[in-house]
């Protein structure tokens, strides 16, 4: 398949690439833009590790074709921190929400989208929002607590 051009915004910056058109957004991010912070656990939409924000909404990047992202805005874990960590990142690091850290980028992006819509979500709403993100390490409790703490830190 012949490579095709693609222009999209990634973490606030315009990126123009020429890429193999069969690639998913996940592959475009990891392979063509070297943004390996976005992970994969199945490439079938089953684990949530590859979640990114497309125009602010959480999406599984393994189920989105790169071609579908022309002109759209994509946010990945690399876009969260500046000189300091995003409050959600800091809360995740402080409260043990990242053990191996592999599902973490997908959960952080999912949580960011949740807090954008609901700055002060209930515990049940948090559990619901991340129910498509599998984590094998934590048992989820410290993740839920870190999202609550992140919400508090953002509110300050």
């Amino acid at each position: 398949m012949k490579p095709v051009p693609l222009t999209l915004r990634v973490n606030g910056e315009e990126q123009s690439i020429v890429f193999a058109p069969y690639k998913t957004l996940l592959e475009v991010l990891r392979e063509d833009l070297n943004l390996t912070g976005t992970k994969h656990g199945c490439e079938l939409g089953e684990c949530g590790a590859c979640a990114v924000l497309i125009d602010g909404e959480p999406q599984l990047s393994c189920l989105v074709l790169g071609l579908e992202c022309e002109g759209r805005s994509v946010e990945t874990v690399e876009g969260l921190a500046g000189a300091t960590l995003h409050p959600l990142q800091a809360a995740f690091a402080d409260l043990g929400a990242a053990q191996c850290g592999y599902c973490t980028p997908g959960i952080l992006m999912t949580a960011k989208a949740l807090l954008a819509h609901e700055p002060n979500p209930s515990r049940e709403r948090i559990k619901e929002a991340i129910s498509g993100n599998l984590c094998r390490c934590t048992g989820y409790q410290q993740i839920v607590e870190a999202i609550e703490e992140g919400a508090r830190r953002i509110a300050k």
Partner: protein
Amino acid sequence: MKVLGKARRRVDGRAKVTGQTRFADDIVQPRMLHMKLLRSPHAHALIEEIEVAEAQGHPGVHLVLTGKDFPISYGILPVTQDEYPLAPQQVRYVGDPVAAVVAKDEQTATEALELVRVKYKVLPTISTPEEALQEVEPRSNARIHSYSERGNIHRLQAFEFAAEKGAVDTALGAADHVFEDLFFYEGNTHLPIEQHATVAALDADGKLTLWSATQVPHYVHRSLARVLQLSPSQIRVIATPNGGGFGGKCDVCNHEMVAGKAALVLGRPVKICLNREEVFYMHRGRHPVLMKFRTGVTKDGKLTGMHLQTLVDGGGYGSYGVASTFYTGALQTVTYHLPKYKFEAARVFTNKPPCGPKRGHGTPQPRFGQEIQLDKIAERLGIDPAELRLRNLVKANSLTANWLKVGSIGLEQCINAVVERSQWKRRFRKLGFGKGLGLACGSYLCGAGLPIYWNKMPQSGVQILIDRSGQVTVFCGATEIGQGSDDVLAAIVAEVLGIDPFEIRCVTGDTGITPVDLGSYSSRVTVMMGNAAIQAAEKLKKMIAEAAAEQLEIVPDKLGFANGQVSFDGKAVTFAEAVRFAEEKFGTLGAVGSYVPPRAPGRFKGAGVGPSPAYSYTACVVEAHVDPHTGWITVPKIWIAHDIGRTINPVLARGQVEGSVYMGLSEALMEESAFRRLPPKLSSALVHKMPSLLEYKSITSLDMPEMDTVLVEDPDPNCPFGAKEVGQGPLLPVMPAVANAIYDAVGVRIDELPITPDKVLKALHRKAAGEGGRVGPEHFPAVPYPEALIVPTPWDGGDGKEIKRNDAAAVV
């Protein structure tokens, strides 16, 4: 304690939340090629011919490898070197790799796989232990491995820990009550979210570097040297931080060997990342185990003896199986005192993905049976289940019937904690139909006492370099798999040197530049690496104290190291200043430390599995609600208390306990590696029923109950600052506690895992029909266990050795 015991961010926390942690598949090299493996579609077959010319000629393909390219076998245990990187003649499970294609990208490699033509001769399939137990002709092609002890029985083991043969039967005969129960624990898998990945490349000097998602870089290094016939000095294995391990990355993998070979042949970097389906085939997960427990007990609830038989379904290769099989019986004695103990085990080969070590390695299965049986004993005897356990606890600093040395034991405090916090006494058997509480306990190793290959060298080494700026760099072969091994390493060195753990740089899991640590398995890292780190740090502390004392004109012993200062009584220098004085006095500052576990007292053949420097203990109460109309099980809350010896970082320790509870609950309620046979028109192969994350059910955030976690600190003298393991032990009591809670809720016994609603419903129907209200195995097949090795216990006057067969009669 200045650092230990204080809740704080882990030292690698920032990397993990920014996506900067470099997992194996995140590594990209210039001119890198991509590899895919062709896997067998048959569960058992002979390879008659492999035709690779077409694949080799496919545009973009650089290399095709087959079994012919790998004449040398390997295996994690020296006694079972039974795997080849690519199967040369025989495939033993659906998914067994037979060929590899290296191409310019993954897409091209995948296309070319379809051009490799393999002609198979399909063989009879062994799908269950019952089939595996059947006699086969010595040269029959129904035999999966020719080296197995007998037909398809891989390994048979039998021990009787008592003064003479038959003593356990005699004890059971004399007991007030004998309980005989069958249990079955279905196999399941680790399911790390990170799929296995490896990158192999030649470095600038032409040496092979292999980055891999492995828990055991040292064993991968040894295996590469063997399989590729390279000098070990020409190999460097870098264990990238694992995106979850749980034992699934403890074995040496086919793709690691093949990627290494491809990089050598092509002189270019080669990457492979398994897809999720392939991770299910790689497996090495929990062994399915059928168990028969016969336990004697006095009327006041004292255990008098136990006879345990296990039948272990190993899958297609040896893997860790010989050790796993020993573990199905090794730790029954370290929780409750068993005066006499007989253990018989068999592992069989079947045509399924190989089983191996998963969190708890071989011990969760018998723990499940033992703790349910105790619940049954307690009920029959009218003793509270918590009280029954307290009456039988092993004593601290004692030897068990099978010669394991138990040090500290905080189980009594653990039981008391969960009993109190769950309001057990007020609520057990009193919640009404449909709701119940269940209690269970467990214990686990803090590191396997013996290395996998026999040697007298240290099991863990740590090297510390201190730069004149005060910067501390710690090197250790230990592998970060999410458990926080880098954090433990930094915390322990920081505690000794009185500095902030974030001042320390950890360089770990790299066989080219770090001292050997055997790997992240058997919950060994905190104890072994930790002790080695203390030794190295203390050497440096002594030098620094001596130099600083000269400057401050005081005695070195008086100096304290804390908060980045070296001080006594108002006189102080900063740590960095003290380091400068020490470098002036002693030259460049560096030290090494190493750790060899204490020699275990058992001397009998087979005594190598079970000994550990220390044992951790856990107690757990589960609340379960059962809908009697649907069988649906809800778990609203779990109370757990774990004897951790000493907590290094409470944030991480709690995470390990909760993660274990999660995984245990998931195994209890839904996880299973199930297989089915394809119809004849589709080859009749035995295939994995659910090799996907969607079909292999695991608990999500919505299903997780509230967890109440207590860390009990009973420091063990063999452990660094007294710290025991916390990564595996807390899983053990969860499954039986769930089963016991379901019994309390609706009065049915589910004696097998997973406990699914259909089984609960079936048991309820049986109960209503007067058929006893139990679902579980009904029959234990005849297993040709050998005559047991007789090992007199410490209280029989034994010396840790077995009685030789010919003089067994003389010793009465």
